[in-house]
Structures are given as C-alpha cells and as structure tokens.
C-alpha cells in the first residue's frame, strides 16, 4: 500500500497525500488549514479495506502525519515557552468528551442548515436595491478625533497569551520506549508487544508502537504478527545500535 498515493478529500485539499505534503513544504498550503483528523480517518478506512496490517505503510504514515501535526502545532502555538497546564486523566477525558460533543452539535446544526437551504432553493428575492428606488444618503454626527487614537491604541496593544489548555494530551517521548525496549531485548531475544504495554494509557501505547517501528527501521528488530489483531512478536536481530536521530526529537 502506497501511503503517498492515499487519496484525500478534505476542506482545503483534494488529491493524493504526497501532493498535499509537497504543497505544505512549498508553503502553498497552510498547515493550519489541513484537517489532520480527516487524513487519519482516510488512512484507517483504506487500511480497513485491505483487511491486513501493513506495518511498512503504518510506519511511514505515522512518521509523515506526526511531522505534519508537529508543523501545524508549532504554527498554531508559536509560544514554546508557554507552560502546559497539567490535567488529571479524569479531567482530560471529560474535556475531550465535551469538545467532541460540541463539534458533533456543530455538524448536526450544519446538516440542518444544508437541508433547509435545499428546501429554500425555489425562493428567489432581490439582493440589490430596487431599480427605481431613491438613493440612500447616510449622514454622520460630528465625531471626536480621540476615538481614532483610542482605536489605534487598542490595535497596538499586545494580544493576550494564547491559551494552551487544550494541549492537555501530552505525549511521552519516543526515546523513553526505545530505551525500555532495548533493555528488554538485552535480556530476552523475543517478546510480545502486548505483554509490555498492557494497562498503559492509549497515548503511551501509540508512542510505544512508534518506538517499535523505529527499532525495525534501524534494523534492530524484526516484527511478526500471525494475523490482524494477533499479538505482535518482537525479535532481536543483531547488536547494531545506530545513533538515534529520527522522530524522538519531536515526540
């Protein structure tokens, strides 16, 4: 499966994934305009159609989409110094559910509007002034020049700090899992991924998977899976330990 040829149909873009990446890199498409969730959904649908887990494709996709997400996040929230507020998992789940409900309502309301518009398609009315209507003259009472100065002062005022409260889902660094897996592999030649990550939060499981793909890419391990959703077996290949340079930095 060619990740780069993944066909996308998003708000701001329609076409293959690699064209989208090219446009972003050439700065012809704002990363902020890109609906990353839409890309993930498209990829998952494609994956489901195939019915088998293509690790190569998953790895490539995760790397590309992570890079895109990072780029988008940096552009939306350039203030790297800002403190991320800590939320308890309970509160984070609450917040996530609240946001999803809000978005779902917006979508439902939009569907209602679309239906309404369809029903009103046979209603025509004049948009401009009537052909023979008198001209409107607007007159303005005397104004204080101080109002102009006040308006510019407001425009010159520093904007408030951007709230980062919705970046509560924090990703553990990939390097943490790389170290952990290397330690396990130094003791055992083979282990099952599922046994290592059972009970972890979903975010940690995802990052662990990312670390595994990186180990495979660097030739440290081989991965086996009997079938879809079967346990993923990790096997040590050799002692080679290349310098880590990839995505750990960004995670």
């Amino acid at each position, binding site marked *: 499966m060619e990740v780069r040829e993944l066909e996308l149909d998003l708000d701001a873009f329609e076409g293959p994934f690699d064209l989208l990446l090219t446009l972003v890199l050439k700065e012809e498409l*704002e990363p902020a305009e890109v609906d990353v969730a839409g890309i993930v959904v498209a990829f998952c649908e494609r994956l489901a159609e195939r019915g088998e887990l293509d690790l190569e494709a998953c790895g490539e996709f995760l790397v590309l989409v992570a890079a895109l997400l990072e780029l988008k996040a940096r552009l939306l929230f350039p203030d790297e110094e800002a403190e991320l507020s800590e939320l308890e998992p309970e509160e984070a789940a609450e917040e996530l559910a609240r*946001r999803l409900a809000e978005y779902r309502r917006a979508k439902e309301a939009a569907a209602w509007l679309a239906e309404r518009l369809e029903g009103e398609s046979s209603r*025509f009315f004049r948009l401009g002034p009537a052909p023979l209507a008198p001209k409107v003259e607007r007159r303005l009472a005397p104004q204080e020049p101080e109002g102009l100065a006040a308006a510019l002062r407001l425009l010159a005022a520093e904007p408030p700090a951007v709230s980062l409260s919705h970046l509560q889902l924090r990703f553990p660094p990939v390097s943490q899992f790389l170290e952990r897996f290397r330690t396990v592999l130094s003791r055992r030649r083979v282990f099952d991924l599922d046994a290592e990550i059972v009970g972890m939060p979903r975010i940690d499981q995802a990052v662990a998977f990312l670390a595994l793909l990186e180990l495979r890419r660097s030739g440290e391990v081989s991965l086996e899976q009997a079938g879809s959703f079967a346990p993923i077996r990790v096997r040590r290949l050799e002692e080679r330990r290349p310098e880590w340079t990839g995505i750990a930095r960004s995670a």
Partner: protein
Amino acid sequence: MDRDRPFRLITAGPVDRLARTVEALLVVASQPLSVDELAAAADDDPARVETALGLLGERFAEERSGIVLEHVAGGWAFRASREAAEACGRLFERPVERGLTAAALETLAIVAYLGPVSRPEIARIRGVAADSVVAGLVERGLIAESGREEGIGGAVRYRTTPLFERVFGLESLSQLPRLDDVGEEAVQIRERLEAVAERRGA
C-alpha cells in the same frame, strides 16, 4: 370579469390606502421591513399596518400572485412565487448560497448558534483554521463583524446577518432548532469513549 375596473381589489377607505402605501414601501425596500419601520415611514399606526399587511398577505399569496409577501428576518418582504422559480433561475444567479461547502455550513452553524464568536473559537471547535472560510462567508454577506472580544487585543467576533436569515427563510434566529435537540450530549459521548477504551484495554 368587469373590464372597466378589473383591478380595484381593495375598496376605497383608509386601510386600503395604507395597504397601497405599504405595498409601495415593500417594492422599493432593500431589506425586510418590520411593522414599526413600515408604520414610521407610512406615518400611521402599527396596529393598522398589521391590518394592511393582512390584506396584502391574502393578495400576494403563493399561487395567486407572482409576487409573494413573506415574513422573514424579523420583517416583511416581497419575493418571487415558487411557481416562477424556474424562470427566476434562468435569469438570476444565486451568488450567496451557490457552492456553500460543508466547511462553510459548519462555520455558519457555529456563528448562528454561538455568535458573536471569534475565528479562534471557531477554529477550536472545528479543529481547522477558519480564516478562509470566515472570509468567504463575510464576502457572501452571510456573516459580519460584530466588535472584538473583551479585553485588550481581542480577536474580531462575527455574527450572522439578516441576509443569512433571509437566505435560509428564517423569521429569526430563534427558529433554529434548539442545540440540545441536535447532536449527542457530552455525557453520552464520554460513555461511548469509555466503552471503547474498556474493550481495547481488555
């Protein structure tokens, strides 16, 4: 049909004269006119204007007339009859609503329900930057600026326009279905998320 006076619909009398005046006002107006606006322009009583509008509503009704009186966007306005939609479609564009994308409708819904609302707020709800979509809706006249957020350096806020109500055939924003009635409650979504998480974790 009496050919000598075939079109004297409204018998002579003060309300009929007022009805003619209201008719005249509506045919030159650029926007729907409220009863108060009509009464002020006609220099007459709002209650009498309502009576006149009742007469005109019978006369300018769908199937009776090519000109139809409607109550929309908080006022009264003339439009073409639905019977003539095909002919109108051949002569007039629909620049306001043509090609409204799903993104535009979602943004419009957010502004209609939550307005006045800023671009960052819209982006937060939709998860995508709202700049070009908002600019497109302003251009179409469906939303307009409505001050800035409280505090210093606040973002520009937007609300829907009377044109929005007119295009969607709404008497007012209160005709939108209640948000509580559409979509799922946060509680329900949360329960679903938890159910999924449990299945995965097991």
